[in-house]
């Protein structure tokens, strides 16, 4: 199915469970096994948490747009915000470290998704996360 779905949410952590529930169901619609459904849910959630904390600096009344498009061979999420652009040098900059109290989110996103792309687009900052679907 080549369909898309769009969700506009406030930048408040209380809405993260809503998006996770939706993303988990989307994964299973597109035939992802349970572990990968949990994986894409985690990746999208971590990306949204980063937008809330870093792009919007914990301002909870801003807007985040989550766009999901799925084709025959992959499912793609595009997250759009109008906050501070991400400094590419900081993404996965801290090596995974057992002692650290931060710096794990972008590593998890990268190891779960097949493609991760941070860009600036006319509407703001766009983060693209895509995952191949099982044949």
């Amino acid at each position, binding site marked *: 199915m080549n369909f898309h779905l769009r969700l506009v949410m406030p930048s408040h*952590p209380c809405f993260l*469970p809503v998006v*996770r529930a939706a993303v988990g169901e989307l994964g299973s619609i597109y035939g992802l096994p349970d572990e990968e459904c*949990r994986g894409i849910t985690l990746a999208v959630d971590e990306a949204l948490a980063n937008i*809330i904390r870093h792009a919007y600096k914990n301002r909870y009344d801003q807007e985040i747009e989550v766009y999901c498009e799925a084709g025959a061979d992959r499912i793609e999420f595009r997250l759009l915000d109008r906050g501070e652009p991400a400094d590419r040098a900081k993404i996965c900059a801290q090596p995974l470290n057992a*002692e*650290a109290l*931060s710096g794990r989110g972008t*590593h998890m996103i990268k190891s779960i998704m097949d493609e991760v792309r941070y860009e600036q687009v006319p509407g703001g900052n766009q983060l693209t996360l895509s995952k191949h679907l099982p044949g």
Partner: protein
Amino acid sequence: MKTSTRNERGATIVEVVGQIDLGSSPALRKTLLDSLKGTDRLAINLIEVKYIDSSGIASLVEVLKEARRSEKRLVLFGLTPAVREVLQLTRLSTIFEIRENEAQALEA
């Protein structure tokens, strides 16, 4: 997310129920650090945790560091696939003391 705490055979057991994420991990962090103050041995039951994100993992790491600093013992038990997968992704599976169930968590 909700937590409940009880004492059993000289250990404090914190049971966590629900999802641990950016919204709930600050409360979890506080509960765990408070519980650690009053015990030599803290066991965390994660069997009802269907979701944990990096902020929840960071809270667990912080509690582990505090336990080591104060020479106390921290054990996790009842790990769901979601929790296991995140520990693997963050390469923390071998850092924590992990047990199957409460009985094993309370063994020496």
